[in-house]
C-alpha cells in the first residue's frame, strides 16, 4: 500500500511502512471491538482498593493505586465497544451501545457520589455532636483521588455495560 508517483514521497512512504505503524493503524481501523469483562472488573476493584487505602492512610499511596486503575481504564477503553476503532464514525448500533454504556456508568458514578456525600455529611454531623466520626476528604490529594475514583467507576461500568450490550462476535467473519 505504498505511495507511487514522486520518488522522494515513495522513499518516505517505504520508510514509514518499515516502521510497521501504518500496518498497525490499518489493522486497528478494520478490527472489531473486544468485549471486556475481566479487565474492567479488575480495574474497578483496584480503584475501590485505592480509595480504601486513601481513606485508611491518606497521603499518596491511595492516590497512586486509583491513578493506576484509572490509567488502565483509559488505555483499555479504545479497544472495547466504548472506543472508536481507527477514529471512524460510529454507526447507529455502535452509537446506541456507547450511549447505553455511558448512561449506566454515569448512574453508577452518581449513585456512588450521592452515597459518599451522605456518608461524609453524617460523619461530619456525628463529629460535631462528639459521637465519633467518619473519614472526610481534607487534603487536595483526597479530592483528586475521589475525582479519579469516580471517573474510574464511570468508565469501567460503562465498558462493562457496553460489552454486555454487544452481541457475541460473528463466527463467520466474512468480508
Amino acid at each position, binding site marked *: 500500500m505504498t505511495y507511487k508517483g514522486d520518488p522522494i514521497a515513495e522513499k518516505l512512504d517505504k520508510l514509514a511502512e518499515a516502521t510497521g505503524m501504518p500496518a498497525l493503524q490499518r489493522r486497528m481501523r478494520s478490527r*472489531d471491538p473486544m468485549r471486556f469483562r475481566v479487565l474492567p472488573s479488575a480495574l474497578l476493584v483496584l480503584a475501590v482498593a485505592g480509595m480504601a487505602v486513601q481513606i485508611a492512610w491518606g497521603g499518596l499511596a491511595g492516590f497512586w493505586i486509583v491513578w493506576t486503575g484509572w490509567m488502565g481504564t483509559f488505555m483499555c477503553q479504545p479497544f472495547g465497544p466504548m472506543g472508536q476503532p481507527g477514529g471512524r464514525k460510529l*454507526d*447507529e*448500533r*455502535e452509537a446506541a451501545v456507547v450511549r447505553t454504556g455511558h448512561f449506566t456508568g454515569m448512574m453508577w458514578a452518581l449513585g456512588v457520589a450521592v452515597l459518599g456525600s451522605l456518608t461524609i455529611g453524617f460523619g461530619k454531623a456525628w463529629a460535631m455532636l462528639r459521637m465519633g466520626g467518619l473519614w472526610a476528604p481534607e487534603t487536595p490529594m483526597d479530592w483528586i483521588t475521589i475525582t479519579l475514583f469516580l471517573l474510574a467507576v464511570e468508565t469501567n461500568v460503562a465498558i462493562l455495560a457496553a460489552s454486555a450490550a454487544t*452481541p*457475541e462476535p*460473528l463466527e463467520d*467473519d*466474512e*468480508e
Partner: protein
Amino acid sequence: MSRKALADKVGVNPQTIGFLERGDYNPSLELALNIAAVFQVPVELLFSFKPFPSVAATLLGQGGSA
C-alpha cells in the same frame, strides 16, 4: 453481495450487518429502508415480526404448500 459491500452501501459497520442477519440487532427504520432500497424490494420482505422459514424447510415444502 458481501457484508462489507452492503455495509458500505448503507453506511454501517459490517459487524452490524452480521448482527442483523443473526437477529441480534433490530435496525432503525432508516437503516431497514436503506437496506430494502439497496435490494430494491419492499422492507417487509426483509424484516418481519414472524421468523422467516428456513431455506431447507422451504425447499422441502414444509414452509408452505409443496
